[in-house]
Structure formats: structure tokens, C-alpha cells
């Protein structure tokens, strides 16, 4: 018998329910207001009292209202039909909701039970299978969507039967598998999984060894994100976190993108709703929406569901990873999730940690980031020799209070994420976008021998050493600029001006990138390699200047021509024309 209860206390969305039976931590319960059921999650239990966070407004709720415990945790529904969908943080399909305004208690099905899918067998009768093994596949849009042995199945199974290739509905039984004790289990195309529990149906998780191309020069070249890696973008408001994430979501070389809008602006999600169905992924020619799923819990949507939204996103990512796909998960902003935790913790009058955040915030964040990664699956490739693989690359933003990076969310995330893309207010103020600070930011992956090998092999033998050089040059430029500021233009040797301006060339031409220019917004690795060589050539040229007064106009004009190149199609006539112009300019000033 399901446990029931009655509401005994209400403080905003913290509702205390007295239960008449066993209750478990994180169990879902429904509070039965007249005409609407409010979904809630148990977050603390004292004696018979279950403290629940309600995922909705509690306006009008009365003490004595009935509640019913569901004996499961917060779950998502997994199956074909998730791709291209717009969900809220609890995986309700937003498009299925009626009316302009969100109605509380309006829970809509994440999948369409009536949808028909073309099923093709992968496994055969008699095959040994386990959780995550591929039984068959259906085409979800363009994507081969694997139908797997449900993740909840523990142990080893044998395929007893599998349906013939043909058309089936989401809830049709497509296979029967037998467990070791001889018991049969039916498998449909749909399964459920609790969002706070990582899906571990894979063989092993090696260190990331490839990079994930994003088309953003200052990321890919200077501080690359690894496929299966993690990164985060902290920055004050207006510094460019969202624009950067949107750029990555449009250009990254991934099979599937999950965008989690967590506690941020509705209009930013509307931008994706509006533009992604129109924008084309240059790699595949398909519309961006065809590879995207949006989880959206904007800042005005119920606070408790904000936390759920990032877990919902991660669990869906894990599901697609198990199909052997390269998934990129974006979350904007993870600070809002931390703030949601803080609001609840304060309502429960828990002993607060720094800045009133809960004490276990660092652990919560690092457990979450740990769910990303490149994995080898238990599923073997058709040849039976190699394992299939999949990955989740995770990139989150952090919104530090007052722009101060010494605050709990930033500090906790810094421990968990391997790439740090610090957005700098001064760069943003002077419109040097993307405002990623080239000196403070880092990618730990650049130190991985596996990644270094990969870069040498796929880009160039001297790539890694060149990248290190560029970083040195930028630092030298910064030092030179500080010296000039202290000693004055004529108080330093001309060489300082050169160091400063050569670094400015790298900054303006390579680091800065116009996210709103059709051509400049995305740069292929090949073009990045080419452009890096050009700016390094400028850097390594010995110039001759008679006075510091000549330095500034000269480099301004070099930068100007390079910028024209950035706005031109790669290797086009125009592009090559500007290249010639630069060569001429360099030769004019070369020391002999």
C-alpha cells in the first residue's frame, strides 16, 4: 500500500507532510489540492514528518490537505522522441501544454505513446545482454536511436525473443529477455530512470583524449575542451556567458546538444526556439534543432524545479551517450541551481556554509560534473573486437555574486571542472569579445599527454609548443603594457611597444571573434591553424621603427587588414587579397 499523508506545515514551497507509513529520501509525493495535484520531492525526514520541496506555487494550499507518496524518486522517461523537444525542468513537454500561461499541476507526457517507429533488430535471440545492451534501433529523425535493455535491469540476461523489423509504438514490447533465474522480462522502447542517480551502464571511463571543436578560436586553440571533458564559464553579468554558450551550441562538433536553461531569462530560450529550427549545422546540412533538446526552467519558473532541470539534462545526456553518441550538455547557469539549494536550505533552517549556501555544495557540484566523460560501452562493435564508445562533454556557466570569483559556487566548480574560461569585465567593457581572459583561463587537458599526442597528430607537430608560445607572448604583452603605463611611452625602449602591439595583434585577430558575424562566428580548426601561423609570423618578424610614435598606427593598420580577413570566406579571393596586403605591409617595415 502506498504511503499517504497530510500537510501539516507550509513555508513558501517547503511543505511538511505527516506520513502514515514508510517514506524515503528524495521520494516523490503528490499534494492533492482540490482540482490539482502538486508534485513535490522529499528532502528531509524527521520522525513521521517528511519535509518536501514543492515544484509549484503553494498559493492557497491548506493544512490537512492529503498527500500521496509515489515510492519512486524523481524520474525521467527515456525513449525515442526526446530529440528536438522543449521540456521544462521536470521533463514536461512545454508544447503540449494548453494556454499561454503555465498552469500549476499541468504535467504533460515527455514522449508520445502513439508515435510509430521503424524498428530494426540489432540483437538476436540467444544473445547475452545486460543493462544498456543494444537490442535494436529506430530512426529518431535522422538519428539512429538505440533501444536498450533498461538501465534498471541488474545482472545478465539472454534474449528470449525480439520482434521482427517493422513499425511499433513506443510502449509496444519489442523484446523479452530472461534473467539468470529463468524469469522473463519484457522490454519496450520506453524506460524510466531516477535523475539523481548516475547511469553506470558502461564498461570503463578513460581520460579524455580528443578535443571537442567549438569553432571559438580562443577556446579551441588556447584552451581546448576535451570530448568527454568538463569546463565552466564564470563571469559577471553581461560579460558574455550566454552568447558564448549559444555559439558553442550552434557550432560544436557533437551529435546531440542538450541545452539546459537553468534559472535564466526566458527570452534567451525563445531565441533558441526561434533560431534553431532555421539555422543550419554546416557539418551535416541539417537544421540545428534536429540535434538539439532544450530543458528549460527559466528564472520565473518554480525554483525547486531548477535543481531538477540540470539533473534531467544530465540523465538524458547519459541515455544518449549509452547509444554511442557524442553528447554536449550545456547548463546556463549552474549558480541558479546552487541558489535554489540555498533557498531551500535556509527555509529548513539548516546551519549555513559560506555565503549561506548549504555546507555540502562542493560535493553536490563535483558529483554532478563527475557524470560527464568519455566511456567505452559494454556494447561491442559489429566486428565483436572493439567496444562502442560515447561521451558527454559538459560546459556550465557560473554567475558569481558581484563578479567576485572568490565565492562558493565558483570555487567549488573550479575544483570539479577541468577547463576554466574566466570572462573578464574589462574585456567585455571594451567590447573585446569573447571576453575570455587569455591569461587567467586554462584547460587542464592541454597538459594531458593523450591530448598533446592527439593535437600533434591531427593538427601539427609543433601545435602544442606554438600554443604555449602564444600564451607567453600574451603575457609579455600584458607586462609591457604595464611597464608603459608606469614609465610612460617614451620612458621605455621601443621594444616594449613592439611587444605590446604584437600581443594586441594576437588579441584582435585571433582571440576576438564576432559572435554575430556570419563568417567570423565560427572558425574551423584548419582556418584556426592558418590564422595562428599568420599572427605568429607577424610576431616573429623583426621590425624596424625609428620612434614609438610609428608603432601604433602601423599595427593598427595590420590589425585592420587582418580583421577584414576574418570577415571574409576562408581562402576566397578577398581573403587572399588581404593576405597579400599584409605581406606587403610586413615587408615595408622588416628590419634587414
Amino acid at each position, binding site marked *: 500500500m502506498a504511503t499517504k499523508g497530510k500537510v501539516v506545515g*507550509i*513555508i513558501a514551497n517547503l511543505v*511538511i507532510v505527516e506520513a502514515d507509513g514508510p517514506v524515503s529520501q528524495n521520494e516523490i509525493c503528490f499534494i492533492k489540492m482540490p482540482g490539482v495535484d502538486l508534485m513535490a520531492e522529499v528532502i528531509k525526514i524527521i520522525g513521521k514528518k517528511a519535509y518536501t520541496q514543492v515544484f509549484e506555487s503553494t*498559493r*492557497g*494550499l491548506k493544512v*490537512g490537505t492529503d498527500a500521496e507518496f509515489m515510492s519512486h524518486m524523481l524520474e525521467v522517461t527515456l525513449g525515442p522522441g526526446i530529440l528536438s523537444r*522543449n521540456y521544462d525542468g521536470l521533463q514536461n513537454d*512545454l*508544447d503540449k*501544454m494548453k*494556454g*499561454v*500561461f503555465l*498552469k500549476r499541476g499541468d504535467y504533460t507526457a515527455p514522449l508520445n505513446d502513439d508515435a510509430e517507429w521503424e524498428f530494426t533488430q540489432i540483437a538476436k535471440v540467444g544473445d547475452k545482454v545486460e543493462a544498456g545492451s543494444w537490442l535494436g534501433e529506430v530512426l529518431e529523425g535522422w538519428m539512429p536511436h538505440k533501444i536498450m535493455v533498461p538501465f534498471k535491469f541488474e545482472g545478465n540476461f539472454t534474449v528470449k525473443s525480439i520482434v521482427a523489423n517493422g513499425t511499433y509504438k513506443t510502449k509496444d514490447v519489442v523484446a523479452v529477455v530472461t534473467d539468470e533465474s529463468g524469469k522473463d522480462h519484457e522490454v519496450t522502447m520506453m524506460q524510466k530512470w531516477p535523475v539523481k542517480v548516475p547511469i553506470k551502464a558502461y564498461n570503463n571511463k578513460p581520460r579524455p583524449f580528443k578535443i571537442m571543436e567549438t569553432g571559438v578560436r580562443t577556446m579551441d586553440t588556447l584552451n581546448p575542451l576535451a570530448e568527454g571533458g568538463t569546463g565552466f564559464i564564470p563571469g*559577471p*553579468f*553581461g560579460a558574455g556567458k550566454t552568447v558564448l554558450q549559444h555559439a558553442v551550441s550552434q557550432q560544436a562538433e557533437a551529435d546531440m546538444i542538450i541545452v539546459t536553461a537553468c*534559472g535564466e*531569462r*526566458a*527570452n534567451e*530560450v*525563445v*531565441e533558441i*526556439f*526561434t533560431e534553431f529550427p532555421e539555422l543550419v549545422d554546416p557539418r551535416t546540412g541539417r537544421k540545428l534543432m534536429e540535434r538539439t533538446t532544450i530543458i528549460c526552467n527559466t*528564472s*520565473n519558473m518554480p*525554483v525547486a524545479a531548477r535543481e531538477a532541470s540540470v539533473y534531467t539534462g544530465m540523465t538524458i545526456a547519459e541515455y544518449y551517450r549509452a547509444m554511442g553518441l557524442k553528447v554536449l550538455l550545456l547548463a546556463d547557469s549552474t549558480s*541558479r541551481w546552487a*541558489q*535554489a539549494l*540555498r*533557498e531551500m536550505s535556509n527555509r529548513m*533552517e539548516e546551519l*549555513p556554509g559560506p*555565503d*549561506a549556501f548549504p555546507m555540502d555544495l562542493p560535493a553536490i557540484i563535483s558529483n554532478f560534473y563527475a557524470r560527464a566523460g568519455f566511456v567505452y560501452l559494454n556494447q561491442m562493435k559489429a566486428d565483436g573486437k572493439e567496444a562502442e564508445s560515447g561521451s558527454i562533454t559538459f560546459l556550465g556557466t557560473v554567475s558569481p*555574486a*558581484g*563578479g*567576485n570569483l572568490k565565492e562558493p559556487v565558483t570555487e567549488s566548480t573550479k575544483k570539479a571542472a577541468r577547463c576554466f574560461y574566466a570572462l573578464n569585465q574589462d574585456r567585455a*567593457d*571594451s*567590447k573585446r569579445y569573447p571576453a575570455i581572459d587569455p591569461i587567467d583561463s586554462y584547460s587542464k587537458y592541454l597538459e594531458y599527454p593523450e591530448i598533446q599526442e592527439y593535437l600533434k597528430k591531427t593538427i601539427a607537430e609543433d601545435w602544442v609548443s606554438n600554443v604555449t608560445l602564444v600564451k607567453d607572448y600574451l603575457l609579455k604583452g600584458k607586462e609591457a603594457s604595464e611597464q608603459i*603605463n608606469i614609465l*610612460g*611611452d*617614451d620612458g621605455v625602449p621601443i621594444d616594449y611597444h613592439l611587444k605590446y602591439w604584437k600581443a594586441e595583434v594576437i588579441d584582435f585577430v585571433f582571440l576576438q571573434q564576432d559572435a*554575430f558575424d556570419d563568417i567570423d562566428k565560427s572558425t574551423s580548426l584548419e582556418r584556426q591553424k592558418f590564422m595562428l601561423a599568420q599572427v605568429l609570423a607577424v610576431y616573429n618578424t623583426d621590425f624596424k621603427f625609428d620612434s*614609438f*610614435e610609428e608603432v*601604433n*598606427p602601423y599595427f593598427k*593598420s595590420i*590589425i*585592420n587588414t587582418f580583421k*577584414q580577413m576574418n*570577415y571574409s570566406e576562408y581562402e576566397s579571393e578577398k581573403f587572399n587579397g588581404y593576405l597579400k596586403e599584409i605581406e606587403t605591409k610586413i615587408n615595408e617595415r622588416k628590419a634587414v
Partner: protein
Amino acid sequence: METTAFQKIYTKITQITKATCSLKATGIGYEEIATVNGRLAQVVKIQGDDVTLQIFSGTEGIPTNAEVIFMGKAPSLKVGEELAGRFFNAYGYPIDGGPAVEGKEVEIGGPSVNPVRRKQPSDIIPTGIAGIDLNNTLVTGQKIPFFADPDQPFNQVMAEVALRAKADKIILGGMGLSNDDYLFFKNVFDNAGALDRIISFINTTEDPPVERLLVPDMALTTAEYFAHEKNEKVLVLLTDMTLYADALSIVSNRMDQIPSKDSMPGSLYSDLAKIYEKAVQFPEGGSITIIAVTTLSGGDITHAIPDNTGYITEGQLFLRRDTDIGKVIIDPFRSLSRLKQLVIGKQTREDHPQVMNAAIRIFADAANAKTKLENGFDLNDYDERTLKFAKGYSNDLLAIDVNVDIDAMLDTGWRLFGENFEKAELGIKDELVKKYWPKK
């Protein structure tokens, strides 16, 4: 408020704090309103049969045997066309001597728009002020505050923007407004012959501060009525949101909640977001645009109030006195309109984005040159030219007294470029330079 027969009257208050009182009562809904000796109150906590009420006007003088009457509903407002031209207090009661408004009763602070039912904002709001139109273009459905020190003329600029915005309705939500400012708004709107388009909810400095908490919800519920049901373009002015946030902190402090940064409640972000996110563009043409004021203390935008605001709103307009020209300008560094890229270069001339960015970059160079000068160094030729440019730019474009159309702003930009720089110093696309560089 009148009482009806079936309403139960309680007269035994068990606890009184500065902002709240508690009593034993049953069958009470969360967020329900009540009156305590005639003062409006709202349920903020229920534990068993202990009900805690927040009294908006404060608990001064409330006796333990005060009469408590529960209304069985959340705070609400009657909406209808008749609201137009009227002035109300924070509770929605008329303060202009006119009759109470008849209409449909709706709860304030209602649900959010489903994000998939929104339309992407795309209609530019020209204001004539170049610091806005050129650098921080506004769009209908946007939410944006002025960040300004208390001594700056933010209410004047806001009133001006409101009148030029061609909105169907302007809703003024005044929080802690001084009586003089209240009369100022009334006069400006009256002189412009716009009073019949204005609806005001006013809490002045003479009213209890906690009452302010109702003002944004009153204003926005009204806005939703006109924008959603009547498909009108509604502009909501909220001034001063810092005083609103202060009221939030008073309440949370009196309820013994753990404060986070700057003594603000930990829920400040969510509280402010619930208000600002009411800004919306509906597909049917109606829209709610919110222009707010967040006063700063000594220009500090890292304080929790402006900081949380900046994270929520779609940009901010930062007012600053430029001592070089002796005028208030809209600071191009700290100001931002996040929706400008939806319209600039599309609904405005193609050179708009690049002219805007190039000018701001030079203005940044000028700021560096100024620092150099202050540190006692000689300026080079380029520095000198940036300073000259900066002065013209400030005076002819950034100053809040500018009132021209956007093409004229762009032409002024090119003129200033041409007067001070070589083409190659700008980093603007060649095609544009060729087309717009001023002929000598």
C-alpha cells in the same frame, strides 16, 4: 474592506513581531490575505494551526485581541478598461478621489507565460537618445533598469523615454517615491496630454515601506490584462526597485531569515526575476516592456541589488556625470542592451553594429589616455585624437539631452571618425567604410 456573514473573526493573537503576528486558525490557505484591525496582511507561514501573517503597514499598535478576518483569497485586483487614467495606492485602492474600479477580479502575482508561447522580441523602441538608440537599443518586450546614483535625473529620463515610446498604456509603479517625484510624473504626463494612457500604483515615502512589495505585482497584473487580453503595447515603469528590495530585506530580517550578501534575503534573485520576467512579447502583438530604476550607492554595481538585477534584466542603462562636458551621459561601458542585436543593422542601417563598436573601442582608448595623463605622462598623437573624439562623442551622442533619429546618430559617428582618424584605425569592414566615410 467589507466582511461577509460566513467569515470567521479571530480575536486571539498569540505572537507579535515587528512585521508579523501569529494566531491559531484552521482552514487557511497559503498566501491568503486577511485584515488585522483593518490592516491588510498576508499568510506567510502555516504550521499546524499556527498561522503567521505579515502585516503590510507594520504591527505598531496591534493589540493581542485585534480582529483578524481572513479573505479566503490571494491579493487581487479588479481589471478593466476603466483602469486607464487612474491613480491607486499599493493595495489598488483609488487615491485620485475617483470611484472604485469595476471589472474582472484577478489574483496578482499570477503564473508565468509558457516560454514556448512567447514571441522573440523584434520591435525597436526609438527614444531619440543616442546613448540608448545607438549603443543600447531598446526593443518591445524587454526589461531593463537605469542604474543611477540617487542624485541623477533618472525619473526625468525615464518619463521622457516613456512618452517617446509610443506605448498604448504606460503603467507607473512608484515605490518609495517622494511626493515631489510623484507630482513630477503626474505633471509631465498631464502636459503631454497622456494622462488617459497612464495607470499608476503609488507608494510614496510617506507610506509604510512593506506595502511597496505589492506595487510591482499590481502594475504587472494590470499590464498583463492590457497586453494579453487587449493586445496592447504596454510600458511599465518601476521606480525605485532598490527601495523594493530594501522592503524585502526588512521583511526577511524581521522573520529571522538567514541573510545572504548585503543583508539581502537568499531568495532575492528569484524574487526580482518573478517581477522582471513578466516582460514579454506575445505573438498576437501585445507586449509588456519594463523600464525600471535601480539606485546605486556610490556607483557600486557589485552590491547585491544591482548585481542580482543585472543578472536578470536584459541589460542596464548606466547614468553617469561626465565632468569633461558637464552633462549626464549614458555610460557606454557599463550600459548594455542584450536585445539590441535583434534589431541593429536589421531594422536600422547596416553600419549600426560596427559604428557602435568602433566608437566604444575608441572611447575606451580615450579613457586609457586620460589615465596616462593623470599619471603625469605625455600623450602621443593617437591619444590626443582619442581625447578629442571622446569629447565630441560624449557631447554629441552620449549626453541624455540628445534627441535625433538613428541615421543622424550614425552620421554623427562617421563625422567624428572622419575628423579624428584614418580609415585603417577603425577596424570597420571595408565595404562600410567605402560607403559611409564622410566626404571632405
